[in-house]
């Protein structure tokens, strides 16, 4: 299944940091999300300097790194996963750049290995379109999508140029700032969706969505999917702090996933029907 196909109905796209807080628990958590109704899963490969993340995901990164996560372990993690949804790798460019044996050309080994374990695309928050040529070349070679983030500040000429290179879906950043769960939906989301209306590519909205209600509203506003990270990572963090069992935490994740997916579907129903149907 290609990434675009995952958006045929309003999609729920959860994010977790792989290996948070350890390899095996994290496998169980990701699988719980799939059971809860995930349509695409964004798997974070933690980088020591996560400049686009808020405190919640920063702490997940710390836990995962302390648990021994490395790029190679990440690929093993993907191989070990028992899920039937497309997987996207979310990481920072330096890890992609450094991967591979000494002396090998940069970037290609990472993409090759990702393709091998079944990754379908990348989100790289510190790689704007301007610097992405190399990664795109290898994505094309290995048939992976390179997903770009469209920010509230991405407008005019710049938006047009970027949309020419989009593949898979676009990650619509709901608001300025960094990742993190918030209690409200931003006006900026609607404005960005309006700007993107003309483009025929799935639009998944992320940054700040935490409840089924949010998800419903975002989809009702015209999004094709919701991306949810910090709200889920929060559950992992709390379970870890409280010493809860892996099953208990997994159950909570599955339940929030189900709520978010249901919200997304409900949002679809509230959409004004296209005229003439």
């Amino acid at each position, binding site marked *: 299944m290609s990434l675009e196909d995952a958006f045929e109905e309003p999609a729920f796209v959860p994010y977790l940091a792989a290996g948070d807080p350890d390899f095996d628990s994290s496998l169980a958590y990701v699988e719980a999300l799939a059971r809860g109704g995930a349509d695409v899963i964004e798997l974070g490969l933690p*980088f*020591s*300097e*996560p*400049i*686009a*993340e*808020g*405190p919640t995901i*920063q702490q997940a990164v*710390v836990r995962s*790194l302390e648990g021994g996560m*490395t*790029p*190679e372990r990440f690929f093993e993690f993907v191989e070990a996963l028992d899920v039937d949804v497309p997987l996207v790798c979310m990481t*920072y*460019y*330096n*890890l992609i*750049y*450094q*991967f591979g044996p000494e002396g090998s050309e940069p970037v290609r080994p990472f993409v090759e290995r990702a393709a091998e374990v079944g990754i379908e695309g990348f989100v790289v*928050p*510190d*790689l*704007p*379109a*301007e*610097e992405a040529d190399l990664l795109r070349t290898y994505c094309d070679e290995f048939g992976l999508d390179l997903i*770009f*983030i*469209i*920010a*509230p*500040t*991405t*407008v005019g000429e*710049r938006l047009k140029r970027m949309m020419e290179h989009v593949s898979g879906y676009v990650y619509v*950043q709901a608001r*300025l*700032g*960094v990742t993190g769960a918030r209690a409200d939906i931003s006006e900026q989301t609607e404005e960005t969706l309006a700007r993107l209306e003309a483009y025929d590519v799935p639009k998944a909205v992320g940054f700040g969505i935490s409840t089924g209600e949010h998800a419903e509203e975002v989809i009702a506003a015209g999004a094709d999917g919701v991306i949810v990270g910090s709200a889920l990572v929060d559950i992992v963090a709390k379970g870890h702090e409280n010493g809860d069992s892996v099953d208990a935490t997994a159950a909570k994740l599955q339940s929030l996933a189900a709520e978010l997916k249901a919200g997304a579907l409900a949002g679809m129903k509230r959409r004004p029907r296209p005229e003439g149907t």
Partner: protein
Amino acid sequence: MSQSDTKFGEYGGQYVPEALMPAIEELTDAYERYVLDNEDGFMDEFEARISDFGGRPTPLQYAEQLSARYGVDVYLKREDLLHGGAHKLNNALGQVLLAKYMGKERIIAETGAGQHGTATAMAAAHLDMPCEIYMGRRDINRQRPNVFRMRINGADVTPVDIGRGTLKEAISETMRDWATTVETTHYVIGSVVGPAPFPAMVRDFQSVISEEIREQSIEKLGELPGAIIACAGGGSNTMGAFADFVDEPDVSLYAIEAGGSSLTVDEEAGVAPHSSSLSTGEDGVLHGARTKLLQDSHGQIMESHSVSSGLDYSGVGPELAYLVDEGRVTPVSVDDDAALEAFHRLSQDEGIIPALETAHAFGFLEEVAGPKGDDSVALPETVVVNVSGRGDKDLESAIEETEKRDLENAPDMEVFE
């Protein structure tokens, strides 16, 4: 600025979140118009302010005792006399003024040792702009005087509690603020690092150092100096002192890095006991730019170390990385011990207490030309050392670090009861 202008060879670029790209384009445009083309007389105003408020030009001083010791004419470029006590104000004032021309309403900056933070706070107060400085919790607690200075200048100082609470985390956190407030806020980055156009722009604001060195050398010596020596953390005083000489092949350029306690890395712990990214680092991407980095074999950034917090950074400016690869700049590591020894020598022999960062540059002189020097480098007849800052901020830590060691020239502090 065309795409290729963002790079120095393969280094540099703009590896930042998309949300920042429009701001970076706007900044690039402002840089080209105001800084490069002096639109609205921006550079004239900058030059007037850095003279009157900052205290430029700074002297190029002949160092009598060092010259005698090393058998070459040693000149000191006295950036320590700049307002705030370091070269940092050249850049901070330039950027805050630029932010004003751009119509921004708020200034943010990161700081490690607090030197860039204090320079930015001073510039912001001078230009009547609200200012917030991010600083790691650990650095806050070990750099009290500079925190006082920023607060007294009216800046907010926001502690960063993440990670080890040092410069690396503070930069990341400032970028996060910027990603949120980019429409009204300018991020005054503190060295020739970060995404384009910062490295070129910061260099341009700092290059007044080398322009003055050129003029003053010709006036005092009748010719250019044979070598310029500067310490390199991010590399802003270095590039500032080198800029005007990069195209003068007869002027040797030495970038002195912090050798810390050793050049051996503990990959397991993720810690490099030094900050020698030019000499030992590898190509990678950090804080918006491709450059030489201290990183482990997976590409995770390693913590760096130096007795001087201003050199304690895992990356380095991309242009310096490029000039090193080109063979134009020679990087040299000077370790903590040698830097402390040089700190005391300059203080006792010349009556100038240098910043611990700056002391590294003098450690290099001693290592190649001192009585026990290894003669590995034949110094030219005239060298200029950039005295990037004064040591007032370092008194407590210099004493503390000195007491841990057995330095020949350490003063004792027995006067306190």
